[in-house]
């Protein structure tokens, strides 16, 4: 039996990292443009963050501090698995604190806390092509991007309004980057779209199965598509977080019992814990403390 490999720092070999970095640089130079890259087979399945993991592996250095979230939470199973992967293959420092991280890999959320200069947010992207569900052929969608032919997307949004009275896209809501490329923000809820606009942090998007990388450099205009008479709006929640009392944050609905009992709590667990540590208490927490 041949000796099995010992793996390079952050798993990928240096040649591969260079190839990915070149793709990242091109992506940064053309904000919102999907750069094809020679995605590798990773030791986790396609669709489980291989694109994000490759981007993170390519930019990760020994001094970085890594945070991994899935659905906004650090303790979701896949986030735990990816964090453990980088601890194993890169022995890198990890954190759950948004402010302490230099690289944040995410699936489906942007942290509530405003990101700062020097931080990089790496998105895991399942389907990078915003036009894919309007046109299944890659050969066609590439042409549409090249010709800035985005009429179809506007027609789709218009049809939503004609049928439902409002736009029925709630996540993976398409954006236009720096006035040129229409881009898929990955399946984050549209609640997070405004956070992408003029962000101080570098935002990188990796789609492993589809072999695409794209980027939004810091201080870049990111505008959610809409109409003058139907302006873009984000989700609003009726109640604050039941644990930390936060308002204007994205909430997860938690089913408490089988008679319709519900509570709403922060999707961003770090943000929620941080607020509670600073003495904020939501309805549920206050009630429990009163009982003690």
């Amino acid at each position, binding site marked *: 039996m041949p000796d099995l490999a010992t793996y390079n720092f952050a798993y990928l070999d240096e040649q591969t990292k260079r190839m990915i970095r070149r793709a990242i640089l091109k992506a940064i130079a053309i904000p919102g443009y999907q750069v094809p890259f020679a*995605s590798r087979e990773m030791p986790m399945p*396609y669709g489980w963050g291989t694109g994000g993991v490759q981007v993170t592996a390519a930019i990760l250095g020994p001094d970085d501090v890594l945070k991994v979230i899935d659905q906004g939470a650090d303790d979701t199973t896949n986030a735990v698995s990816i964090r453990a992967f980088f601890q194993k293959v890169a022995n890198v420092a990890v954190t759950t604190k948004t402010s302490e991280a230099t690289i944040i890999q995410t699936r489906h959320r942007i942290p509530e806390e405003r990101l700062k200069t020097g931080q990089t947010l790496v998105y895991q992207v399942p389907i990078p092509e915003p036009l894919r569900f309007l046109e299944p052929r890659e050969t066609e969608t590439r042409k549409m991007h090249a010709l800035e032919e985005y009429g179809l997307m506007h027609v789709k949004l218009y049809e939503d309004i004609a049928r439902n009275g409002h736009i029925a896209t709630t996540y993976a809501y398409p954006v236009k980057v720096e006035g040129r490329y229409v881009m898929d923000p990955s399946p984050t809820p549209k609640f997070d779209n405004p956070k992408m606009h003029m962000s101080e942090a570098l935002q990188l998007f990796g789609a492993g199965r589809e072999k695409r990388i794209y980027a939004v450099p810091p201080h870049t205009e990111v505008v959610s598509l809409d109409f003058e008479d139907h302006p873009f709006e984000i989700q609003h929640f009726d109640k604050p977080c039941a644990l930390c009392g936060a308002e204007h944050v994205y909430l997860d609905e938690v089913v408490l019992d089988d008679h319709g009992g519900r509570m709403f709590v922060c*999707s961003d667990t770090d943000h929620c814990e941080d607020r509670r540590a600073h003495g904020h208490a939501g309805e549920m927490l206050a009630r429990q403390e009163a009982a003690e």
Partner: protein
Amino acid sequence: MYVAVKGGETAIANAHRLLADRRRGDRSLPAISIDQIVAQLGLAVDRVMAEASLYDRELAALAVRQARGDMIEAIFILRAYRTTLPRFGLSVPIDTGRMKIERRVSATYKDLPGGQLLGATFDYTHRLLDPSLLADEPVADPVRKQADESAMMRVSDILADEGLIEADGRLPEDHVPGDLTREPLEFPLDRDLRLQALARGDEGFLLALAYSTQRGYARTHPFVGEVRIGDVEVELDMPELGFAVSLGRIQVTECQMVNQFKGSANNPPQFTRGYGLVFGQSERKAMAMSLVDRALRAEEFGEDIVAPAQDEEFVISHSDNVQATGFVEHLKLPHYVDFQAELDLVRRMRAEYDAKSDGNDVREAAE
């Protein structure tokens, strides 16, 4: 009070520990050895090597054992290992005309130079469960004959001598084959990349597509010119030496499908080729691959593109089972953030709907 689900890390560790337990199974039984898998589950090992694009029986057997016999999982494990290996160079194209043949059958000629060699085949067996295999009864040694050392000519060469079949490939001599594991695919593909993708494509998917061409979704009028299985030398050009040296032998299955073609403005009437080549022994895969290869050449021959098997982007984008299984199975990952957004939307639309229909009820009552 609700406690956020913590301890994902422990849960994962425990799940994997249980997996290891289930994989090993009953400890009172001896563990299955890698040698046993290579020797007795050889075709499973071959499939893993073929679809992982890595020719190494022991590593493939290890993957089969680690994956508890789940073929796609085994392919996945072996591929994730393959991707980390360095590339030393490109071998000289293997010469299947010089194959040491174990099996070779042609459906187009009753007899031909080299003859028909059945080899080890399931063909013509009666698929009756064999109770004698329940016990480990001795198996007779095979009948052997002296190997024919001369090269066995390919059926396609017989047709080519008469000029009745198209030339073997149209890419220029100096064409360097692409590597889909190192470069992103961009459609449309050259045939070399397409064949690479098919060679590692899912056996079941290609089988179904090939079957569809036989049932009228892009008929290609195929004949099995030849299927051959055997060992070929893998050689590497050594610039220091000025000639190629052998690195060893690999077993491959090759299928040359011969297809009817009526001719077009650019091409005379002649037979055309569909090609299949697979690591190890897998006739089903090689034959399916050659049918799909031919179907995908529709545009080249000016044929109407009317069926899925002719649609390169459709076929190649969906033929990779590691990609497919990952993306299908990722649906079990949490999606509650997006689901929350959809819940909110459905509730809102439902409220609007109810308000509207309440209004209608009132109006109807008043009328």
